[in-house]
Structures are given as structure tokens and as C-alpha cells.
């Protein structure tokens, strides 16, 4: 009976899957507590590029609501995509976050919501703090195989765990 329930649950879950598309590509990003000096919550961008450096999708943009003036300081993200469309940026940005652990995911689509090919990509995490430093981290991966990795902490980022299950 127990088996049946779990089977039923699994079926239920499966049928719900396309609707609540739980991504198989997940990132756990930690913003560390920083106690030295003046502290402002960091400007943060997380995004995917293809292996030729072309923008694929922004997964997170945390900046001040009226903070377009400072967006250029998220330098690579700004250069690659941010500067191209102010309205779009307005639509995707959300408030800066305090220190803590955050879960992000990629639904394997591009900005046009079209599924991407199983190729090589890079994920970028750029964190910039006013009166603080800047760190940019990247990880190359292929959508052809599962992987799991942890990027080492830097001054502006705690451990970053990236996981993909096909």
C-alpha cells in the first residue's frame, strides 16, 4: 500500500512537473557577512553565456530600484547585456540582498524563453559592493553531462554550489 502511495505521489509529481518546471540546473550562492569597513549590500548579477561569450540568460540581477547609475559597476554583465535595453533591465532587477544563502536556477532557456542546445556554456557570478570590492567568478560546463561543483569563497562571495542533473 505504501508503495502504491509513493507511486501515486510520484505520478502526481510527474504530471505536475511541466507546470512547476523544477530546474535541474541550480546554483546556491552565499553572500558572506562582511563586518569590516562601510557595508552596503552588493550589486549582484548571475548569468549564462555561451562558449563564445555571447549572453544567453540573466538568472539574477540584484540592484537598487533607482540604481541604474551604478549598473555599469557590474562591469561584465553591464557590457555583455545590461546596457542594451534599459526597460528589460528594469523588468528583471530586484532589490539587493543581505548576507545569506540564495538559491537560483536556470530553466535551460535563453532570454526569448527558447530551450537552448546541449552545448558548452559558462555561468558567471559578479558581485560588486559600494566602498567594497568586486569579484567575478565563472564556471564552464557542458549540458551533455551531469556535474556538481563548488566555487571557492572570495572576498565578496561565500561558497557557490552549482549542480546539474540531466
Amino acid at each position, binding site marked *: 500500500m505504501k508503495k502504491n502511495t509513493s507511486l501515486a505521489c510520484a505520478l502526481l509529481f510527474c504530471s505536475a512537473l511541466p507546470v512547476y518546471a523544477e530546474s535541474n540546473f541550480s546554483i546556491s550562492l552565499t553572500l558572506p557577512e562582511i563586518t569590516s569597513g562601510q557595508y552596503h549590500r552588493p550589486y549582484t548579477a548571475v548569468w549564462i553565456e555561451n562558449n563564445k561569450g555571447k549572453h544567453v540568460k540573466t538568472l539574477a540581477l540584484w540592484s537598487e530600484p533607482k540604481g541604474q547609475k551604478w549598473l555599469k559597476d557590474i562591469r561584465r554583465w553591464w557590457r555583455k547585456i*545590461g546596457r542594451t535595453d534599459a526597460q528589460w533591465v528594469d523588468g528583471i532587477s530586484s532589490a539587493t540582498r543581505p548576507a545569506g544563502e540564495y538559491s537560483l536556477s536556470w530553466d535551460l532557456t535563453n532570454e526569448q524563453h527558447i530551450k537552448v542546445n546541449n552545448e558548452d556554456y559558462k555561468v558567471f557570478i559578479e558581485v560588486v559592493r559600494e566602498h567594497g570590492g568586486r569579484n567575478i567568478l565563472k564556471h564552464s560546463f557542458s549540458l551533455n553531462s551531469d556535474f556538481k561543483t563548488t566555487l571557492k569563497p572570495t572576498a565578496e562571495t561565500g561558497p557557490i554550489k552549482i549542480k546539474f542533473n540531466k
Partner: protein
Amino acid sequence: MNTKQIFALASSMLVVSLLAHNVSAHDRWILPNEFNTSAEGEKGVWITSDVTAGNQVFVFDKPFGSEDIEIITPQGKKEYPSSSYRGGRKSVFDYQLTQPGTYRFQKEVSAKYYSKYKVKGSEKEIHTRVDKSATKTMMPKGAYDLQGALYISRVETYVTLNKPNKEAFKPTGEYLELLPITHPADIIENNETEFKMIFKGNAVKDVEVSIVREGTLYRNQIEAIEVSSNSQGIIKFTPPKAGRYLLHATYEKALNDNKLADKMVNAIFLTFEAGLE
């Protein structure tokens, strides 16, 4: 020669000896406070720029006029600074970027003749700020070794608000010009940058280009990157570090059968920023 003429000649010589020094020895530049800016909507961004000549990259030494600075907007229109100031060691001008895109700030381009000659009994060259044939009429008897040159210089930089565009690159087809292939907003440390040198609108080879990172005052070597344009007019170089750079391009051309000058000297000073990776 009447007194008036002598006075004019003497004063022009005096000015020229200072000016010629500027022309030959000092680098010149327009240095904006920011090269790449972001702002929402029509809010705009104020840019303030130094206009100076100096021997150390970005250490201002001598002012030169910012009144005749021209701004080419992202729509290709010509505008002027909203205000300017001339100080003892530098000039400054302000301009507000209101439209997204790339602006070119440039010193008005002017072609100027300079000549020089020697007089017997002195090895010192005497400079004039007029062409060869005019100098000839003013020279004292027995003067010799008369040479004249036509100097054309461009002093420019690019500043971008939000999304870059290329309208302001448009060459005029006059003298030597630098056409960005790599957009100035996309010059990044450790990445190759490519520019094209054109003369009267056509690709020109053998333009000598020197690129120097700011801060020469605080290092022992200039660390200049020296390149020259190929037959397609192309120069390529890789900025080794993020920071501000001064590019100085020179191109000399003999002027045959020209009564006014023996050669033409083209110079371009371009200020740009190499961004962090």
C-alpha cells in the same frame, strides 16, 4: 619692413616658440571623468573633462582651449560644451549626455603651418607660425635652411551612455583619422583591440602609433605599446591592464611641389579606457 610688421613678426615668433614646443613635445588629451556610464530614462549624465597638454600621461601641465571643443552626438549632430573654464594648468568643460549612445568629444581640427629657418652666425632655428612662402617674405637677408610643415592634429575621446552605437565614428575624409573597429566601450584588458587608420578616407599604412597607460609618473619605464598600421590601415594591440590609456598616432607625408610646406604632419591623440575583464 615697418615697425608694425617687425612687431608682428617678433610677437609671432615669441608665441610660436612656445607653441611649437607644445606641438612637438607635449602630448595632448581630453580626459573625461567617466567613459562608460549608465542612467535611467532622460535623466542624463554630466561629464566633466580635462583638456590639457603634458609630458606625463594624464598629469596636466599646460591648458589648451576647451572653448572650441566639439561634441558629436550619437545621432551624428555637432554640439558644444555647456560651460568651460581655462585655468593655469588645465582647461575643463562640461557636457550633459541625454541620449543613449556613443559621443565623440573632439578638439576642433585645424591645419596650421609652421616654418623654421636659420640665420648666419647662429645654430638656433627660428620658428614662425606661418607657411613657407609667407616666412620667406619676412626672413632677414642671408637667412637659410627654410623648412615648412603643415600640422594637423586631432584630439579626441569617446564617451558612452547605456547602449553604445557607432554614428559618432563617421569619418570626415579629411587628413588622418582613426576609425574604431573595436568599439571604445568594448576595450577590455587582455583582449585584442583593433582600430583602422585612414587618410583622406582611405586605409593608410605605416601610421606610427604609441599607446601608453596612465601613471607614467609613478613607474620607471613608460611601457609604451608601439605598433604601426598595415596595408589595410589596421592596428592591433592588447591593453595589458584595465585603466586609462593615451594613444598617439603620427603620420608624416612629404608635400612635393608645394610652396607652402615641405611636409605634412598628422597627429591623433585618443584617450580611452580599458575595462576590467
